[in-house]
């Protein structure tokens, strides 16, 4: 896909003029990448606030409010860092509003701290702080929401500055003080909205064009290919086909043939049952408890995510770490085929204290939170547990089975009276 060559507005027929999706919804890993910018902004903003406050201490008329302003902006930054964690993804509208309101509260408190003694608008840290935080919203929230929030916040800043403009020394209309103070907030809001819109349009275009991930080299470390040949196929090709061909060639059935046919039939059926017992998840992890084949109800994104988590954990585990265990349980009552049935997939794994397992799992958890209806993670000492919930409306609920009982009961003699048609129900 040529991102640079696409239309500016990307308004394909039927495209929504108001974009409701966020870049993080469409690309959870993008949110994980952007978090480093959030860290940087949230380190910069309190530093700027403290340094600027100390540098213009002579303009402070009420230190309590100024200190409160610093406390509030630090709280806003801490909350923002916490809310953008991949373990809490996606960053919500509520969190966005809380960060903006806390920042706006800091502006108001800073203005109160300098009430009557603030002579210069340009040495106020609060508008710059809001702008620095606002510009990082671009990776997390829909453009319209960022723009609306930016405009409202800019108006709030303008109103606060306008209210305190009597003490400014410059010979310009008060409304211009308000406009200049809100300018960084407005510009940053518009920039963040443009960033968000551009990302969403690109991500939409990518999905529209096929949305295939990077082609990866199968020889890269960690890839373990599953067996591609069904068990029954080998016996059919190497045993049953030559046997039947020999009967056709000889045009005769001997007593030994009948016995051999019975034996081949028994073995072939047993292997077919064995193949039927296998699923993508039993080939993925050795320790699987999924007697009802609930894993069949996962959609491709969910399967891909679980497969990626398992691959990551296995490639990062040590020889002494306990093996991965995967179990599937039906949580909500009722039959699996009905809408609303919830399945919980529980993945248990060992933690290597030398590696920061939790941090390394972050990107995978961000994806999991986007593709599963519920994701919970717990760490207890040397063990970790991930619960992934999904609505398994398409899953086939099978009775629990025992391979031995199946094979022992197998009997070709009870096969169909409808000759040459079939053998069982």
């Amino acid at each position, binding site marked *: 896909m040529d991102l640079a060559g696409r*239309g500016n507005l*990307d308004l394909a027929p039927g495209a929504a003029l108001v974009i409701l999706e966020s870049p993080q919804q469409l690309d*959870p890993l993008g949110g994980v*990448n952007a978090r480093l910018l959030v860290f940087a902004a949230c380190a910069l903003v309190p530093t700027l606030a403290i340094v600027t406050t100390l540098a213009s201490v002579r303009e402070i008329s009420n230190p309590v409010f100024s200190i409160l302003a610093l406390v509030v902006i630090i709280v806003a930054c801490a909350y923002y860092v916490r809310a953008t964690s991949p373990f809490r993804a996606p960053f919500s509208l509520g969190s966005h509003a809380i960060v903006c309101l806390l920042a706006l509260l800091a502006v108001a408190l800073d203005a109160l701290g300098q009430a009557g003694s603030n002579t210069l608008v340009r040495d106020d840290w609060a508008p710059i702080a809001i702008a620095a935080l606002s510009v990082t919203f671009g990776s997390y929230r829909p453009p319209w929401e960022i723009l609306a929030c930016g405009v409202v916040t800019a108006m709030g800043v303008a109103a606060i500055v306008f209210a305190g403009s009597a003490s400014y020394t410059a010979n310009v209309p008060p409304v211009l003080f308000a406009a200049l103070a809100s300018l960084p907030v407005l510009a940053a809001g*518009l920039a963040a909205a443009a960033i968000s819109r551009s990302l969403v349009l690109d991500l939409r275009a990518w999905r529209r064009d096929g949305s295939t991930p990077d082609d990866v080299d199968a020889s890269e470390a960690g890839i373990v290919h599953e067996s591609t040949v069904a068990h029954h196929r080998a016996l059919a090709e190497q045993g049953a*086909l030559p046997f039947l*061909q020999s009967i056709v060639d000889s045009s005769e059935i001997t007593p030994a043939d009948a016995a051999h*046919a019975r034996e081949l039939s028994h073995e072939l059926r047993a292997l*077919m049952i064995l193949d039927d017992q296998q699923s993508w998840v039993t080939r993925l992890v050795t320790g699987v408890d999924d007697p009802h084949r609930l894993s069949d109800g996962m959609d491709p994104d969910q399967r891909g995510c679980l497969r990626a988590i398992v691959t*990551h954990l296995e490639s990062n585990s040590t020889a002494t770490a306990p093996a991965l265990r995967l179990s599937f349980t039906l949580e909500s009552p009722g039959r699996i085929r009905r809408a609303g049935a919830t399945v919980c997939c529980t993945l248990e794994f060992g933690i290597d204290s030398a590696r920061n397992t939790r941090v390394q799992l972050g990107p995978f958890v961000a994806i999991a939170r986007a593709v599963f209806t519920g994701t919970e993670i717990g760490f207890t000492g040397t063990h970790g547990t991930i619960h992934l919930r999904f609505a398994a409306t398409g899953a086939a609920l099978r009775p629990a089975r025992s391979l031995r009982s199946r094979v022992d009961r197998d009997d070709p003699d009870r096969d169909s009276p409808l000759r040459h048609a079939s053998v069982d129900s």
Partner: protein
Amino acid sequence: MTLVFPNGLAAQSTKVALSKGAFWFAGVFLGVTAFFLIVISVARGTTIALPSLVALALIITAGIIVRVPIGRYPVTIVAAAVLALGGYLLYLDILIPLLEANAPADGLVLTLVKVSLVMLGAVASRYTRAIAATLIAFLIAEVPTLVIGLSSGHGYAFDVASTGTFAIVFAVFALLDYSRSRSRASALVLARASREDREAIEQDASASSSAALVHDTILNELAVVAVSEPGPLGEVASSRIQHSLSLVSGPAVANHPESRALVTEFAGSILSDTLDEAARSGLALTISGDFDALATVAPDVAEALSLAVRQCLANVAAHSGADRAELTVLTTPTDVCVLVIDSGVGFDEALVAPDRLGLRNSVHARIEQVGGTVHVWTSPGAGTSISLLVPRS
């Protein structure tokens, strides 16, 4: 996986997004600054400076250009160039009078314009070019201030804002690059998992098709041989075994052209064969509905449907205890539905022995694999109705 944006595209997409953000950030700054200068002129009763008006016109023009829906990135570059021209005009209009009036060189409006110019450097394509362009823009904005300030004897005031803007742009690009490289490993694992899952699903589908075919052919022939009396092999039996052998002739049965043709031929004739076999086994069939509709489904769907119907009738004969069954074809504009109904003993689907593969592999899996659905209505003593719903081609 639809949620893993490839790293290469993500880098390109993020750069384009940052360019757009930088453009609008600078545009707002320059627009408001030009407006600010015009309002100041009006408020102070002075003549409105022509450069400010021209600059405002250029800024508005840039805002219009960037909305033109042709070739997104080139348009952004052109719009940024127009914006930079307006910005620099504004810059000169502010800088020269400020120095002439002995005002400090870091006046607020001058700073706003310098910040805008530095930010416009970030519009350049690619991260390295953007960093270089931002540095050049920073020098273009600062050097005239420095030279004019020093040469006129007014000195030079370090501009924290424009320098900070340059540092922030540089830091943003560096952090994004670092963050992307850090997340590359996880993106790779996710992409790989997605590909492996697609392969696994294909393998499962292949194994399921194979199992159904082996079940309906080889396993059946073995069962027949196992219960046959020793002696010469009849012509009909020999023909049927050969037919089954040709169908299960190798792993590429579905792809080999000759085998494929054989399978398609088989699909075309299997329904009539099935009806004949049902009659031979003593099962009386009542047929109703629009059988011509079966011609409207794709060949692979027809094959799957025929084989599934055959298995359903086999089950009726083997397990229902009924000596008759009903076969009905219903149609909708998008689907074809075949109903197989008997009034036999019925069964509890949940209690079907796990070793009975026919209903699961030869009916459910087969139909679901071609995008259809199977519904079974049955209970002990109440007969059985099975609907096989498949899409029209």
